[in-house]
């Protein structure tokens, strides 16, 4: 098996013949609700950005099944090394939307203290959702290192490293998969092939036959899964996680999906994404697919939909309201957390900054805009 066969469990019409996910109705509805929450979060962020109230966001439309499906295979004691497009993983594990919104507004309650751009989340609770970094691929070898720490202590926890198709070209991808292969480290590598890396299509990213096949270069199994099929992603991840927990080493999963929005709120994909491609993928919407599945299973009705959706929308709207009215971080946050202790030269620089603010008032924010 070279990883190029596609695993699909839910068909387009919602049928999942002969597959029992082993999940309760509640669990299934929770997954579905999380997908709707991702979409609601996405929508409101787009509006906030268009209204100039936040600077930037990252559309998630189209890839909700991959995120939620993968996250649902992880335990709270596992660590997630996410990409910036993994809202659903955080939501699934119970990060309150308001915490996410604090980050979107970069305010004083943001766990990153407003130091990072929006969508660069960091949490240790309720799951280790490791501080997102902008440079592509750097987190992948870190996941391997963290996994090695589990191994060393004899713990059966697993790291999930999530990245895009573009991320496979990074140096971190190569180092990480190579080390993980040699170490048989308990890591699951999740490549979310969403068709594009900003404006670079997958076939200009690599000449290989898909991404799962790259696993062969590192002596680990590679599997391709329908990324718009929550159950398939979940299943593939569960299997990979089980292998990792059992000490059998890493797996590379390629989830085939599609970025239905722009790369970010500053990107205009109509300049480069062919209309037909977009239309084609719109037909495979992961939320609709899941909805149909739940309907066949007899647990979806329009009333259920309305309730879940309204709840999701209200949760994120309320979160945005709170976050918007939370003050911005204090001046001292520029200087803290550079080191465990504040070194003398930073103390001096900080004192000078406070002194300036006292004498001349606060600095004036510029009008710069984020381009991408």
């Amino acid at each position, binding site marked *: 098996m070279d990883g190029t066969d596609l695993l699909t469990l839910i068909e387009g019409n919602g049928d999942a013949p002969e597959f029992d996910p082993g999940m309760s109705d509640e669990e299934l509805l929770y997954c579905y609700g999380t997908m709707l929450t991702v979409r609601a979060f996405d929508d409101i962020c787009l509006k906030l950005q268009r209204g100039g109230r936040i600077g930037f966001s990252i559309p998630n439309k189209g890839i909700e099944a991959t995120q939620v499906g993968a996250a649902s295979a992880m335990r709270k004691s596992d660590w997630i090394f996410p990409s910036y497009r993994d809202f659903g993983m955080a939501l699934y594990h119970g990060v309150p939307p308001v915490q996410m919104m604090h980050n979107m507004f970069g305010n004083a309650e943001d766990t990153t203290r407003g130091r990072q751009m929006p969508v660069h989340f960091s949490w240790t609770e309720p799951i280790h959702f490791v501080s997102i970094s902008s440079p592509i691929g750097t987190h992948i070898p870190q996941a391997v290192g963290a996994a090695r720490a589990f191994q060393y202590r004899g713990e059966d926890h697993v790291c999930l490293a999530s990245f895009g198709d573009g991320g496979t070209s990074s140096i971190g991808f190569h180092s990480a998969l190579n080390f993980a292969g040699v170490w048989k480290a308990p890591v699951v590598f999740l490549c979310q092939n969403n068709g594009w890396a900003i404006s670079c299509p997958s076939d200009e990213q690599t000449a290989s036959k898909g991404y799962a096949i790259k696993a062969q270069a590192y002596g680990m199994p590679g599997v391709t899964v329908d990324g718009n099929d929550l159950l398939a992603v979940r299943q593939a991840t569960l299997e990979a996680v089980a292998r990792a927990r059992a000490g059998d080493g890493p797996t590379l999963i390629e989830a085939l999906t599609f970025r239905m929005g722009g790369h970010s709120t500053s990107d205009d994909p109509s300049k480069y994404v062919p209309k037909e491609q977009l239309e084609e993928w719109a037909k495979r919407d992961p939320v609709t697919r899941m909805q149909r599945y739940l309907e066949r299973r007899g647990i979806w009705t329009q009333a259920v939909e309305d309730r879940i959706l309204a709840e999701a929308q209200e949760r994120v709207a309320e979160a945005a309201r709170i976050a918007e009215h939370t003050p911005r971080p204090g001046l001292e946050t*520029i200087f803290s957390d550079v080191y465990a202790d504040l070194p003398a030269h930073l103390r001096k*620089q900080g004192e000078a900054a406070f002194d300036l603010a006292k004498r001349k008032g606060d600095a004036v924010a510029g009008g710069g805009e984020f381009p991408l």
Partner: protein
Amino acid sequence: MPTLTLLQAVNDGLKTVMRNDPTVLVFGEDVGPKGGVFLATEGLTEEFGVERCFDTPLSEDGIVGAAIGMAMNGLRPVAEIQFQDFIYPAFDQIVSEAAKLRYRSGGQYTAPMVIRTPYGGGIRGGLYHSQSGESYFAHTAGLKVVIPSTPHDAKGLLIASIEDPDPVIFMEPKALYRTLKGEVPEGSYTVELSTLREARAGKDVTVFCYGAMVTVAEKAAEQAATGGIEVAVVDLRTLLPLDEEGVLDAAKRTGRVVVLHEAPRFCGYGAEISALIAEHAIEYMEAPVVRVTGFDTPFPNTLEHNYMPDDRRVLDAIEHVYNF
């Protein structure tokens, strides 16, 4: 003469060179059909074809490594690194290879190439879309480091950099991309590398700066002038090889110096300017050589305007050295 933004001047510079020299190739992430995330390469693929302006896979190491190979083999590559913050995966290729190729091969192999990259704060980019790493490169023998501060210079320095026989790190002040307009001659012209520009004359205090900070210095100088202090603003333009004599002359003329950049202070580029003065012009100094810089921390997001030097901080320093 047309009035262009700094961004348009870069675009114009690229087009001008590409029209004249078929060995010039432009590539990087998203520089093709999309025209770059800042649109610096807009229209290039259209005009010159995908053979001369194209997207690459997401690998700065590959971009710079391939550029070196092309440069060795007769081309004049102009590689874009989308944000200067993302140049570090290519650091090895830049520092170990491009910078040392001529030396280690006794001149048999050379790397005439340009790496263009937007740098600096002011766009709410946080830690990873705001950095000013010039001193990493300025410490690297074999590289040239160029930073324009006006549309005119952006085009003229860019063309000079592409024509230069050595590898050039060309850092573009992204904060000025769309905010700064100026007259830009049509057609080809160069601004000679390793020459300073006196952005403003003044006999009391000299401010050394470059890139986006030139505008800040000018604003502070304006304010100082109302208080009777005449400030010279010196735009360094080429950080390596620096016109050291020019710097020392400008320092000696006023005897009072402020060094300004947005990069962190410790071991930053400003230290070199101070050190040159401390070694070769200390007898002329009538006040401490004061640095106004970004803080020695990563670059924050929400508070970026508190992090970046502004006219108020610069004016403070000017007054300090003036009244010393």
